[in-house]
């Protein structure tokens, strides 16, 4: 099975040959891959080097925590890759962005109004949680839409707060 795997801005062609062998851009590696105690903790020995990693699925990339550094890694098989190429790039910049509460908390303020033009990085909602005031910012330029919460309101994790179009 062949995959196109992207880490940061770097692309690797990874082929899973069998249980014990993987090739990366044509370089062959002997691998020994085990999950530890039923958790998303993985032990990988590749050509003798021992690595331990905590791997979780993220929104559009795997979150690989390796020796304390976080690597977002996109894994696509060839079919997916072709589909995406056909659809054209720049996916994230179009469509509506839905701001969801990253954790349960109390809305302290919503310093924007519906219809307001916002810049990338501008604060959309201030959410208090764990005794801290957290500023939730816009990931891009756009127009605020559908504000669903008010200051003083408690929100659950992943609750929709507003969107930016």
């Amino acid at each position, binding site marked *: *099975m062949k*995959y196109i*795997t992207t*880490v*940061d801005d*770097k692309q*690797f062609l*990874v082929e*899973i040959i069998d249980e014990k062998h*993987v090739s*990366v851009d044509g370089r062959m*590696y002997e*691998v020994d*891959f085990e999950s530890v*105690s039923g*958790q*998303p*903790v*993985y032990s*990988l020995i*590749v050509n003798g*080097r021992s*690595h*331990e*990693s*905590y*791997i979780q699925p993220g929104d559009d990339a*795997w979150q*690989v*925590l*390796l*020796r*304390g*550094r*976080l*690597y977002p*890694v996109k*894994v696509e098989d060839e079919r997916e890759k072709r589909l995406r190429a056909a659809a054209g790039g720049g996916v994230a910049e179009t469509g509506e962005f839905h701001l969801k509460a*990253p*954790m*349960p*908390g109390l809305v*302290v303020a919503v310093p924007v109004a519906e219809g307001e033009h916002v810049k990338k990085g501008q604060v959309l909602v201030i959410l*208090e*949680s*764990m*005794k*801290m*005031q*957290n*500023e939730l*910012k816009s990931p891009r330029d756009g127009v605020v839409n559908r504000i669903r919460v008010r200051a003083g309101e408690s929100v659950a*994790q992943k609750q929709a707060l507003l969107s930016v179009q």
Partner: protein
Amino acid sequence: MFKKVLIANRGEIAVRIIRACRELGIETVAVYSEADRRALHVRYADEAYLLGPAPSRESYLRADKILEIARKSGADAIHPGYGFLAERDDFAAACEEGRIAFIGPKPSAIAAMGDKAVARATVIKAGVPVVPGTEDVGNMTNDDLLGIAPKIGFPLLIKATAGGGGKGMREVRSLEEMPTLLESARREAESAFGDGNVYLEKLVEGARHIEFQILADSQGNAIHLGERECSLQRRHQKLLEEAPSPELDEELRNRMGSVAVKSAQAVNYVNAGTIEFLLDKDRNFYFLEMNTRLQVEHPVTEMVTGIDIVKEQIRIARGRALSYKQEDVHFNGHAIECRINAEDPYNNFMPSTGRITHSLLPTGPGVRVDTGVYPGFEITPFYDPMIAKLIVWGETRAQAILRMRRALEEYRIVGVRTNIPFHQTMMDSHRFMAGQYDTRFVEERFSMDDAEEHRRKNEEVAAILATLVAHQQTERSAQFVQRNERDTSNWKWVGRWERMHR
């Protein structure tokens, strides 16, 4: 000796205090909110009583209920830990009235040092240098403050008079931005302390935050246990502390130490407390405030002095003399503490909640972990995000850094995001290694992307790992489909069986 101590706190500090009591043969009473029924302090204490719902105001801040539980359970003393009721003079006074020993200073000392404006005035009288700022004032209006600000000069800090932990603190660069910042500082102070009062202080640039641990008994003895270097902060929250400070030599330590003792004596201080100083580039130091309680970072002092500060607090509260004179206090080696917070350093330090599913503590030589969590414990959004303190000791500062590096690498927490990668990046920072940092370092000159070379090295490994996991998942979902197919045929088989027996 006290027979029974109630711990009016939660988390790692409640566990820390239970440990000290147990080692002294004292029984312990835990109190807990509904969110904390399975918390470690409840599991470890001899007795445990429910306070109320999760929010602090309905549980850990309910002084009335806590006193009632103390009476009911027959506790002789209450240890408040830090935060919550620790710096509330009315609570200390209520304990006194209820004939329950408060393991901390007298209400008068808490009151004098708790109001930052009063504290400044008091120590100025005792000849202690302070940072220029608003003097001898309590309830200043925004107009008052806006008027005084230009005289102090910018940049300056707005600080909550009831403050602590950087809450209600704002940095002001110009008069224009000040009204908005005053509003948000007051709002945060009101929400954190129930008191929206603020005052102003000149911002000392390039400053280090150095604090001295004080112990004072009721017989008039007061000593210091040396300094802690606490300059590594983010949004005025300490992240990492060390002892001794890489900046101090013995002469300056002695000089600052005796000013610290003098500051404590200015309010007839009894028990453990901390004098915070700013140290500027020219090695001038200014009194900032006194924390009239046990500090989060007390373990670094314990590691270099061998003195158990909590046990000494209990001894002092019993009216006994200190176990140590100033000349008995010796400093040995170097200690560093990293605060492990449930925060994502890759996402603007956003707090992270959830269940800790897997956890592996670093152990071995020179490593101490103070924590209130364990695998299976749920991190809720109700309390502060600090889930553990990782403390190491080394013969030298360099050895302590290397040991901290290996301990951070060993520490595994699965289920919530933590700031461990932040501390790892810090340990690799050349400026940190050289001890060249001030209170602005984290926010202004530190980046999580620092270690680019490290990164490159492991990209290929990350690629292999993620691909193997993705591949495994694909295979597994293929199997599910197959199993579902079998299930379907089972149903078919039922149908057939039904038909056969019709």
